[in-house]
């Protein structure tokens, strides 16, 4: 069983598969992004309270979602790599970190831009914002640890442990707005009853979220492929690949 998975997840097969997937997801990302941007900026209505400023939601909310999602992917892939020693998972975890850090930074920056006109402050020390900031530090720490350990396998495994220690922050970020009475508004889309956002705004929001997701998948695959080539540069399949290209 495990051998089958290992076979499927062999660097060579993964490389070949990821070539195709990058194209699909890259193309999907572009289409969704264009649709989302037009939908968000042109077709969606202004908010009854916030007016046009609400449009930053189409950038802010998906990046905040992705910041959590990427961390879970990173910790999950790292753990799988740690337990079953699957190299691809290590590579995916490592490639996710800079992307997750970027999403987190984007969420914090756009949130700050949104907060100034709406709340009246660039930054407040409430639970949601603080825990999101800690998430950024966790990503940066993970990246720093990766670059400090020379052996890539050891780096990946050490990173997995760090990511697992930090994963306690994820539920705190998600539930912070419910557990503490914070300035940040509560969840809108994931509420169990109908989402309290108008359908004309929800559609561009979801389009943008899908675009972000496709971007993440294609970007992480691209990074992982480069990483994998460097890691496996002494192996037979990379030799064959280079031979084919140069012919």
């Amino acid at each position: 069983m495990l051998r089958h998975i290992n076979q499927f997840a062999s660097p060579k097969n993964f490389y070949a598969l990821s070539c195709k997937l990058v194209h699909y997801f890259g193309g999907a990302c572009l289409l969704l992004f264009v649709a989302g941007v037009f939908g968000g900026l042109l077709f969606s209505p202004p908010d009854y309270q916030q007016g046009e400023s609400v449009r930053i939601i189409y950038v802010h909310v998906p990046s905040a979602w992705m910041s959590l999602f990427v961390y879970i992917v990173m910790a999950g892939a790292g753990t799988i790599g740690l337990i079953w020693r699957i190299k691809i998972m290590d590579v995916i975890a490592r490639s996710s970190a800079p992307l997750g850090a970027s999403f987190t930074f984007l969420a914090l920056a756009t949130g700050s831009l949104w907060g100034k006109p709406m709340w009246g402050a660039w930054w407040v020390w409430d639970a949601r914002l603080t825990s999101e900031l800690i998430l950024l530090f966790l990503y940066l720490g993970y990246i720093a640890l990766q670059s400090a350990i020379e052996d890539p396998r050891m780096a990946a495994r050490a990173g997995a442990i760090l990511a697992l220690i930090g994963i306690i922050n994820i539920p705190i970020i998600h539930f912070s707005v419910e557990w503490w009475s914070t300035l940040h508004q509560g969840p809108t889309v994931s509420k169990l009853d109908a989402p309290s956002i108008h359908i004309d705004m929800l559609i561009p929001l979801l389009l943008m979220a899908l675009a972000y997701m496709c971007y993440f998948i294609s970007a992480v695959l691209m990074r992982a492929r480069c990483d994998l080539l460097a890691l496996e540069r002494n192996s037979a399949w990379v030799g064959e690949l280079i031979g084919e290209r140069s012919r």
Partner: protein
Amino acid sequence: MYENTSAVLEAVRLKCVRGERLIFENVGFQLCSGEVLQIDGPNGSGKTSLLRILCGLAVAEEGEVNWKGRSINDDLAEYVREVNYIGHNNGIKSELTPLENLVVARSLMSSNREFSLMEALAQMNLSDIADIPVRKLSSGQCRRVALSRLLISQARLWILDEPFTTLDDNGRHLVQDLIATHARKGGNAVIVTHESLNLPEVILNKLTL
């Protein structure tokens, strides 16, 4: 599998990679009860890495180590009870005395309680300095303190990394005698050393990396 061969310790097609560098591959051997393996090779050929794989500290990139017919990773905790590893570093604290160091070592390993610590130190010619902090001893004496762990353990497999460095002639003979006695009682030893070993009545295998 185990019934057919009497191999106690068996390494199968081990491969070791450090960073992106291949250290060795396709390394294998079999040791039967009472046999000793000497490993030799140039610097950087992965002798220490191999020992660390054999004692379960590190995991091989590929291949397996079997103890009594079962992979050591099946039950590492059980396996390490049978192993006495004396690595490149002595594993003794310079602030403590040889005796205190042995007290800690004994409580960590499956030790032979009847064999008193002072006897072990006496056998290594260390009884005069049993109460002097290790930092005041010479490096050869430190090595002797580390090697006296061999006397108090009941481990069946000794894994020794350059045991003779900094030892004088007397010390070398002492340790070789210990290894020979251990092997004649049916124990095993894997030793990294450049020196030629003189172990009477013991089957000595050699592996060059």
